[in-house]
């Protein structure tokens, strides 16, 4: 295994081998981070005229879900000096906007498709001078996006021309501000349920718990679910968050083919009760597991409420 630091003195042949034999990069692992870049493979005179170090950012656009980014110019204080952005009129100097995309279908030199591709022709702010440049990116360590290696190539008239401009990227810090006229990153992740799906989940939770009758307990709909969703979205394993969506969709649309003829959200309270009871005893493992999972989550949400807890524990503070 090779580190970014070790590659500083590597030859262009070795750097190319690392690109061709590099490891995949998880785009989610880039999201929201600033990386410190170090140029490699360029003659010293070129570096002195341009730069040796720079920053690249990776930012998930909330509306489109695209993974975007831009370069930040740094003061050239030395390879190991802390990053100090160049400032113009009180703002960091930003340039070269791009989108990060998978390599599928992108014309590129053979073997450059191991990781992701930075495409300067698809950035949030178009830059005509950079539109023909693309940078394949690979991870230096399998399963880790902390250190990356990239190289630039040109696409002209359908041909791909390799360049000697290699660079390493090392994870440095979280993005703190955006160069766009819009709010700061909201931490939106593709795994988070949409507002509609969350509403469906809560309707299923309410049908599973079904309090609020003569049991003396508050109805699910009346309790505060904010902390539950904050905890779940912020802390549950990605796999579990990803798995919730198919479970939810199964239980929402299963009634259509399970004798009710319509989705769960169109069922009457009585039909909902009959459906969740039937689903809990379904012969299919996945359906039963979906009910068990949603029941567990419903209990987490319900018993996080101070009023509910107070029914059992003096004080009841969550």
């Amino acid at each position, binding site marked *: *295994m090779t*580190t970014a630091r070790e590659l500083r003195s590597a030859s262009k042949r070795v750097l190319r081998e690392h690109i061709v034999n590099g490891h*995949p990069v*998880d785009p989610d*692992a880039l999201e929201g*981070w*600033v990386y410190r870049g170090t140029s490699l493979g360029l003659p010293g005179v070129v570096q002195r005229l341009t730069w040796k170090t720079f920053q690249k950012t990776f930012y998930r656009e909330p509306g489109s879900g695209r993974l975007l980014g831009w370069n930040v110019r740094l003061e050239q204080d030395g390879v190991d000096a*802390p990053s100090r952005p160049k400032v113009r009129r009180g703002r960091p100097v930003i340039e070269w906007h791009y989108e990060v995309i998978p390599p599928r279908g992108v014309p590129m030199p053979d073997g450059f498709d191991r990781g992701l591709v930075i495409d300067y022709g698809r950035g949030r702010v178009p830059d005509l001078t950079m539109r023909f440049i693309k940078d394949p990116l690979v991870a230096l*360590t*399998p*399963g*880790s996006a*902390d250190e990356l290696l990239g190289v630039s190539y040109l696409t002209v008239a359908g041909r791909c021309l390799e360049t000697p401009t290699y660079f390493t990227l*090392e*994870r*440095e*810090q*979280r993005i703190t501000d955006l160069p766009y006229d819009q709010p700061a990153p909201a931490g939106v992740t593709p795994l988070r349920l949409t507002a509609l799906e969350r509403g469906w989940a809560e309707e299923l939770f309410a*049908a*599973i*718990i*079904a*309090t*609020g*009758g003569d*049991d*003396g*307990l508050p109805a699910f709909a009346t309790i505060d679910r904010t*902390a*539950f969703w904050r*905890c*779940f979205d*912020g*802390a*549950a*394993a*990605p*796999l*579990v968050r990803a798995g919730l969506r198919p479970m939810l969709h199964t239980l929402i649309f299963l009634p259509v083919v399970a004798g009710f003829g319509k989705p769960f959200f169109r069922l009457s309270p009585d039909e909902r*009760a009959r459906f*969740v*009871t039937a689903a*809990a005893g379904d012969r299919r*493992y996945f359906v*039963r597991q979906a009910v*068990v999972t949603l*029941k*567990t989550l419903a*209990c*987490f*949400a*319900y*018993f*996080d409420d101070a009023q*509910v*807890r107070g029914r*059992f*524990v003096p004080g009841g*503070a*969550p």
Partner: protein
Amino acid sequence: MTAPLVAIDGREVRRRLDAEAEVVVVGSGPAGATVAAELARRGVRVVVVEEGHQARPGALAASGVRAMASLYRDMGTSLAFGNVSMPYLQGCAVGGTSVINGAISWRLPPEILAEWSAADPALGEALHPDAIDAHQARLEHRLHVHPTEASIAGAKNLLLARGADALGVAHRPIRRNVDGCVGAGRCLQGCPHGHKLSMDLSLLPDAVAGGARIFSGMRVDRVVIERGRARGVTGVTAGGARFDVRAGVAVVLAASAIQTPCLLRRSGLRHGPVGEGLSAHPGVSVTGRFAEPVRSWQGATQGHEVTGYRGEGLKLEALGFDLSILASRVPGVGADFARRLAELDRYAVWGAALRAAGRGRVRPGPTRPLVTYSITPDDVRKARRAVRVLGDALLAAGALEVYPGIAGFAPVVRDRATMARFEVEGSLVASDYAMSMTHLFGTARMGSDPARSVVRPDFRHHSTAGLYVADSSVFPSNLGVNPQIAIMALAARCAERVVN
């Protein structure tokens, strides 16, 4: 004036950080804390690097979801996949899993040590029973290990004693590492009173008093290896900056049987069975309903155990949960479930830990470790036996109803004859059992054969100088009992080797 426990909080580190020590310990759970305390006591300059944050007893949440979100890795939703998918629970805090476990303290069973020695005589020398016992006795004294007092046990534990008596099987109050426990029933959410002597309240302060520094909120990505020798660790702080901690003498991995093999593999150390041979104690539980209030959330979280089935590879315990988790174990959905929730104080859940023969493996994944684990047909039979004896014990203790919760069998059982029938007719399909996995072992096994082990009997990595593994990854097998004291005793032995 006492030094603060945490020297550097990674949440506040937003620019590159470089530090150095003689020994860097990765992980602050029972293994890491013990190594750090032992080394600091001997004057070694130690840095402990921990991914989680410090839990402050007065500020801990009672709510299950909030506690799990702040103190458990991935909110307790980490999953192992196999013939039955099951969650595995790990703490992620300064003090590791000791912050969120039931404080159960067992010595390493002599017969297990004998098994290990028989399989590899070099282990018998390295882990001599007298040396291990001496460490265990000292650790038990430091952690104030003693049997749970009846006055704070609470009804669920006393009922288990009653059930075991009626069945005529051996049982006893659980020996726990607590001091001044008032039976708040919140061990699994982190003790709100600071009465559980988890590592953040015992050996880590000892280590700090000896000069060790603890860095929290810092995730180690890999071990830095130069010319075949471990020279430090590198990773990312919770504030988003990179950090490097150089180690002049050694790096000790104590990050758990899941994280340690991932760290080794990410560091390019794939020699031997790294990540192979995962063993564990899968657990099953059965819920019962009593006529009188039990209030399972009150009293010692886990205060009584049935030891009479240990010969069969089963150990039964009373379980204390937050309201949310208890409710999720109560049967039913809809109006039936709501009626039961109104009487939640009548329900008790007892569990059994299985000394399973199942094996699994751990690999680093794109964002989380990929863990696979499957139980054997014999383990499924053990699970079925466990459900039967748990149901028996509940009924013998006076439960009106028990709920085996196994597909294809009566959902409600009111008599012991039906429970006995379960052991004959109950399912032998692994996925019919809802199980969870605790106590993970064996993914960087110790041994004298480099082809079949990852570290030597003296805890040194077979091929990389200055690199040690101190956690339960090195255990050649599972134990059949709660492993905290055993892990700490072996970690103390590891510390001796590092010094030597």
